[in-house]
């Protein structure tokens, strides 16, 4: 590994620059387990009072476990849908010659550049028409559509790395296109699939605008809505509870990230190992 001579200096600089972020996380941890804090310094007693939301409903909000399940379903659904559809699309774009292939590639890229928020109203109308407004499925569909272009482009890179001769061999061996796709191509781009799944899951997990716009009733709330409701509204914000909920919200994301980080890294090397 590259190690410049004055590495302690660099490390110090990096630590200094990261300080605000570290302080933020420290506040979450300290604040959630204390009655009162001044900055990150606890002034009250250590307690788990702030974590009461785990077994008690907060005001008229839905139970946190419902919210957790909803968020898991949203993020998991988005990840599954994005992987399923973009892997097939990417394989077709990488391997098959069909009319409009070039145009399609370009359009997918343009879609990726489109800010999702600018289509918010249009998506709203579509969902209402489809009867999917205020449902998790509706949010899953919209989110997946916005994440798909990235998945297609990433996975196309992975599929491009597969050898043509291997596919020819499989054809001669008696395989159909579907067999090749499921039994040879997919397993060989598994790192790419995991990368796209992890990435989509994390994005969906943290997403606020789409669920906030398309979900009204408490039974379909996701975490970001829950958290937002604790900050705003009419009552005074309880910062201790806010810290506890924030920390709780973070944990699954951290777990998924830790599980998926080595695949996320392959995402940026373009899957050239194939």
């Amino acid at each position, binding site marked *: 590994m590259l190690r410049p001579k004055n590495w302690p200096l660099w490390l110090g600089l990096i630590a200094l620059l990261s300080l605000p972020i570290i302080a933020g996380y420290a506040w979450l941890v300290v604040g959630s387990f204390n009655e009162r804090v001044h900055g990150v310094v606890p002034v009250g007693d250590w307690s788990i009072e702030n974590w009461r939301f785990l077994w008690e409903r907060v005001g008229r909000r839905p139970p946190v476990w419902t919210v957790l399940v909803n968020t898991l379903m949203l993020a998991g659904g988005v990840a599954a849908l994005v992987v399923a559809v973009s892997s097939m699309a990417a394989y077709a774009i990488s391997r098959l010659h069909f009319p409009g292939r070039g145009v399609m590639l370009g359009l997918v890229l343009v879609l990726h550049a489109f800010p999702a928020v600018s289509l918010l109203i249009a998506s709203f109308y579509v969902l209402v028409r489809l009867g999917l407004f205020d449902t998790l499925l509706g949010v899953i569909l919209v989110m997946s559509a916005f994440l798909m272009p990235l998945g297609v482009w990433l996975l196309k890179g992975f599929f491009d790395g597969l050898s043509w001769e291997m596919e*020819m061999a499989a054809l001669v061996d008696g395989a159909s296109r579907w067999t090749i796709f499921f039994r040879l191509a997919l397993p060989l781009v598994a790192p790419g699939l995991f990368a796209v799944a992890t990435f989509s899951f994390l994005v969906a997990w943290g997403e606020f605008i789409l669920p906030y716009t398309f979900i009204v009733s408490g039974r379909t709330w996701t975490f970001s809505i829950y958290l937002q409701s604790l900050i705003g509204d009419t009552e005074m914000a309880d910062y201790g509870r806010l810290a506890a909920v924030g920390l709780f919200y973070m944990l699954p994301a951290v777990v998924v990230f830790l599980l998926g980080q080595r695949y996320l890294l392959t995402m940026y090397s373009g899957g050239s190992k194939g």
Partner: protein
Amino acid sequence: MTVAQLAHRGVPLRLEGLSKRFGSVQALRALDLEIETGELVAFLGPSGCGKTTTLLLIAGIYRATEGAIFFGDARIDALHPRQRDVGMVFQSYALYPHLSLYENIAFPLRLKRTPRDELKRRVEQAAELLGISEQLGRRPSQVSGGQQQRAALARALVKEPRVLLLDEPLSNLDAQIRLHARGEIRRLQQELGITSVLVTHDQSEALAMADRVAVFKEGVLLQYARSEELYERPADTFVAQFVGHPPMNVMPGRVENGTFIGDGFGAPVPPSCPAGDVSVGIRPEDAQVGGDLEAQVLVIEPLGREFLVTCRLGGETVQVLSRSRPEADATGRIGLHFPVERLHVFDDAGRRIAT
């Protein structure tokens, strides 16, 4: 696997007027060719000559633009590859990297839903035939190049195909293993009696392994003949220079009064040779040192058994193989002799003239 179990499924292979165009590129032009049952035919030519295209047409990877392919009496060019019953070995071996050698070899059988006992038996027999029984549990990246090549061959043979297609199967091997594998493949092919096509750009490989050789250039079949004939009577100057190493010396000029007049030298030709513009060819091993053609020695390369002498004869550069180191005079000159009966004569379009 005893040989008899695998054998006797070969069929004659016939190509009729086979053409393939990719957009505006004519990759293969109206090819007619017949291969007998159990014969190994080599498709030889430089890259881009249409030999691999033809192989992929036979395998069913490409669809012919025109023409027909017959296995025996059955026309198969409209069939999906899986219905053609061919085995194929690719240049890169094209093994499935995430599967063990066992699963690689078993793959075609699994697709045919072969019963489990039979599958196991046949995979193990194919592996034994090729001497890779010990490596079956490993993945392709965990075995040597030679073993990968054998696994690819086992995968091609395990389904007992009617036709075996080999696309440059030896070019990724080290020189030493290559010679060995060459003999191995030939022996196996002969024992199994399986109709086979070998694509190669290496003329020595083609001559050594094949019953007959088809030489291609720019999508056209130039000559289809037994190795000896290809060497003794090349159909044109391209074949003459492509087959044989070092290549034949081909010198343009004209014939007058039974004498060939080249660029700055003259040599007698067979009396039957017609007058006019021709090219004359002589193989380096047929030309002799010691004669009345005066040539300037440029390089002498000892090859071990003999010496390769490159010299200047008039305006031509000529290569001669000599048993002994030629004795040049003080100015570096030697005499050359082209035996009349060893000369090849080609017309001004490069086609062979019978003499």
